[in-house]
């Protein structure tokens, strides 16, 4: 039995872990899967007679979790000019902090 490890950046949550495990454990020759969403790593124990790291990688890709493939993280603009979201963000943060302060006090209603 041999072991191989893949970085799977797309696997950032535990429902992905389930998907990855379901995909790999259905593959002949895969004997064990350790998938960590925290580290985005999949370690597979397999029987080299029945399958190969390439096949496993292919299976991952087919399931939508190709090794080293990342989600396209939609960019949130970080503008600095007037009216840009960056300023909006500062405003929001301030807003949240104020609420935060209020919430920390003995709020009268409660």
């Amino acid at each position, binding site marked *: 039995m041999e072991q191989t490890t893949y970085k799977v950046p797309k696997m950032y*949550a*535990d429902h992905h*872990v389930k998907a990855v495990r379901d995909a790999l454990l259905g593959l002949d020759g895969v004997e064990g*899967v350790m998938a960590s969403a925290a580290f985005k790593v999949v370690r597979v124990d397999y029987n080299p007679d029945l399958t190969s790291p390439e096949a496993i990688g292919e299976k991952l890709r087919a399931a939508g979790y190709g090794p080293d493939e990342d989600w396209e993280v939609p960019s949130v603009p970080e503008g600095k000019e007037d009216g840009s979201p960056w300023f909006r963000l500062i405003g929001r*943060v301030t807003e949240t902090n104020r609420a935060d302060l209020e919430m920390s006090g003995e709020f009268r209603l409660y």
Partner: protein
Amino acid sequence: MSRYIATRAIRGANRIVKEAEDLFEKALAEHGPDTKVAFPNTGYYLPVILGITGTEVERLGGLKPVLEHARSLLHPVPKERFWTPYLGEALDCGIATLLAEEVIMGIRFVYGEQPERLPGFRLAGGTFTSPDESAQEAIEGRVNGPIDDIQLRSWGIQLVDGRMPGFAAIIGAAKSNEVAVKIVRELQMRNILVFLCGNVNGRSIIHQLMEEGVELGYDTYTVPFGTDTISAIYAAGFATRAALTFGGKKGGQTREIFLYNKFRVFAFGLALGEVDDLKYATAGGVISYGFPVIADTVIPEILPTGVTQYEHVISMPFDDIEGKDDLERATRLVQRCIEVRGVKVKIAEIPIPIPYGSAFEGERVKRADMRIEFGGKYSRAFEYLRMRGLDEVEDGKIEIVGPGFEDVEEGGYMDLGIVVEVAGRKMQEDFEPVLERQIHYFINGASGVQHIGQRDIAWIRVSKSAAEKGLTLRHFGDILYARFHSDFEAIVDKVQVTIYTEPEELKKWLEIARAAYDVRNKRLVEMTDESVDTFYSCTLCQSFAPNHVCVVSPERLGLCGAYNWLDCKASHQINPTGPNQPVPKGEPLDSDQGYWQGPINFVYEHSNHTVERVSMYSIMENPMTACGCFECIAMVIPEANGIMVVSREDPSMTPAGMTFSTLAGMAGGGLQTPGVMGVGKYYLASKKFIKPDGGFKRVVWMSSFLKESMAEELKAVAEREGDPDLIDRIADERYVTTVEELLPWLEEHDHPALKMPPIL
């Protein structure tokens, strides 16, 4: 806020929103915008979306604006080079995450994927029925999914009226099945509702409990939501609906809903196992509700800022938790969760079958009416209160070790030991005796129970009528538990009571208690002025001696004898603005002479600038002033090269030619009079007693009352001074009442003072 957590939470949020958007597009294409979207058996639409945005989503198309709103809440992942406050961003992203998760769950219902299928699983009570399947099929092989409105109300009533303290949302999987079971049991024991979701490497706590045969479902107050983090959204939905139903909040009153939960719903998240981006992101949402999140792995902590009552995120790596085994660790973990959520146990009424109140304190139980007696003439009873660590005390636990008094004949007696263990963030060992003394008052408040004495001379009687009404030993525990919580809320967070009647255990504990009494007695003796950096003031008496300030140190108690250093310290803790204020020792000027800058400054300030310099110990040089309530007066007898000590109880004439009451006029009033000093009698036994002036060996005369009432202490002093017969060398009023008689007597008894350097 940790940049690390913020980064991961923001990243997770960005991704899950994208994922939800993709899923939404797919569903829209496959089912069309008019497809119904709903959770079963609820009138609150998709509740988190309703609560946060005020939108009543009924059809697939309605999810679009929700996703747009979620997107608008997203923030960019923090870049290395910028510093921004992260908390607000992480919370925003957390809310975006919750919205996205609920969208996903709504769509999963459209696809029939919810509640999640789990082969072999059988729900112990649940109300999910799908229109497509028979009730039986619906339950078989599926976890519960969201909680329906009927159950929400039923549990909500208990949450609102306080019977159910709150709920715990557990995400992930425990270290072992055993630990999983223990955690859930600990929570159930406290009547805390448990929600289960999430997985680690495919294993969920749901699997673990299922394997162990733990029944899951409404009937057992443990609800399996699903095996991924997304299903944690049902817990948020529950919390949201609680605010809508019981708080009268309306959809869209986001802030009010969050505040309602913060102040009224005692809930927390418990992440077991590794924490991924989505878990961080979800935690961000959970924190917005005022719920803290505790993880059993190493993650950065978020300390209090106010969104939650105390800490927001706590890391408690499971293997690092103290405990003899995993089970004990599990118990501690749960205790910590409850502490972090910060709910104090409040007992409105003491659950005992007899009336209780201060009106009963003076009640007597006569022998003829007595059901049983503990202590007194025929048996032994003791009480012992000790402080322990927060995780060493199990709040509310009341245990009786040994038989009750049911089998003791009427009018009989038995041995009894009451051990109270308390813990609290502000509790200190020094408060132990203060609190222990309260046991007397607390027990005495019960009608038909008489309590006298304390420590190992406690004496308790229970009347027949109290016993007939069902009073048992356990009720002593109930009383103590309730009263310590209600009366000492400020310093006591947890109380556990054990009552011993089993002879062996009792004996063992009596020894422990006695050792503790002893330690307490001696603690001061062993404590030195050098070992602390703070003394305490006592300005109780300033009304008629406005310039008087007592400085109480471990080796010099207050002159009235009522306040030692520990008492002052405890008193300050309990009443921070009271007459006992900390006096930092400050710069030692001459510690042998008893000069520290701190006390000197303090006394100068608080004596209205009349006492410019004070020695902590000396009688001859800058002695401490006195008010008038001293237990003893020490006064120099120049002829004998020593001092005399006369006690308040002694009315006789002294070698100084004055009685106590005449002397009192000289010693009191806050005047610094070298050669005369008012002291507490236990100061005599202190190593620091007039140390600069030669110490105890200077005592040439003392009231016989002191010799008798402090025989043991004085004996120890004599030994310390290297002269076991020293006390016998000191004159008293039985032998000597004039200075003329004194000298020959001292010579006859070979008093060491005669050979010491001149005192003047």
